[in-house]
């Protein structure tokens, strides 16, 4: 069995994919993950997920090339600011007025 291992470097931080361990069952996987991803105090917590339990989505069809749905090269900052000014909610925006 292959287990995907996620590790948290510091409390409160997001878990990030660290790698995998191959083990006959979850108990072995836990021991191996601890030694492989935790023995140098590089993690404060680990998540283990059997690879078979991971739902993967890997197809994103875009048959009609809807470029306008992509945001690359498109600065939204200024437009958002204008919209917020119109709505009078500028000070409520993340980061407040000093954008």
């Amino acid at each position, binding site marked *: 069995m292959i287990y995907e291992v996620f590790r948290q470097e510091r409390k409160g931080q997001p878990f990030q994919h660290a790698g995998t*361990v*191959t*083990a*006959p069952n979850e*108990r*072995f996987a836990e*021991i*191996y993950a*601890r*030694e*492989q991803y935790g*023995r140098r105090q590089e993690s404060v917590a680990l998540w283990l997920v059997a690879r078979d339990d991971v739902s993967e989505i890997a197809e994103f069809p875009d048959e009609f090339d809807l470029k306008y749905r992509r945001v690359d090269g498109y600065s939204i900052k200024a437009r958002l600011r204008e919209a917020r000014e119109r709505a009078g909610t500028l000070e409520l925006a993340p980061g407040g007025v000093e954008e």
Partner: protein
Amino acid sequence: MSKRTDLLLSIADDELILGWRNSEWTGIAPFLEEDVAFSSIAQNEIGHARALYELAAAELGTTADELAFDRKPEEYRCAPLVELRRLEWARTIARHWLYETADEIRLATLKASDDSEIAGVAAKMDREEAYHRMHAEMWIDRLLSSDDGRERLDEAIDELWPYALGVLDDELRPELRARVEARLGRELPEVEPVPRGVHEAELAELWGEMTLVRRSAPAGAQW
């Protein structure tokens, strides 16, 4: 030498030599994850040895390194169980599990010691040994879950049993027997323990390897 120092050196030598033996699997364990885990356990054991040597060294006016590397093979106080070269996986696991089981019993008595330094180091060691035990126990379950595994484990335990008894003092041996028999679900033979102080020929060979680098440099060399 005081009884306290003798005790510290016995346990330190057990941990150092077993750590060394277990590290012989580094790079060649049955699979990569086990290689990393078993090597890490070996490093932990050597770390425990260092902590215990430091306590003994303070009393003897020497250093942990001198105690670990500058004695003659016959001066080591380790139990013969840890001296055996056992590059066969079932035997390695059997030895690992027998040692951890005995060590748990021994640590429980040390944690209750009136000597706060000894009790403190024992408590620290035990927190790491808990994971060594988890590792050993999961392997025992694995071996017990198939006929082939059970057969290999039984053979290894029978061979190592007199050595395992030798890790502990007389009064702690019945507890070891009770735990091992309960776990394996069978009775073990009444045998003469292989005691400390008698060394296997393999120890001298191991000592030669272990101290090679240190002996190659003049005494007092800084690393």
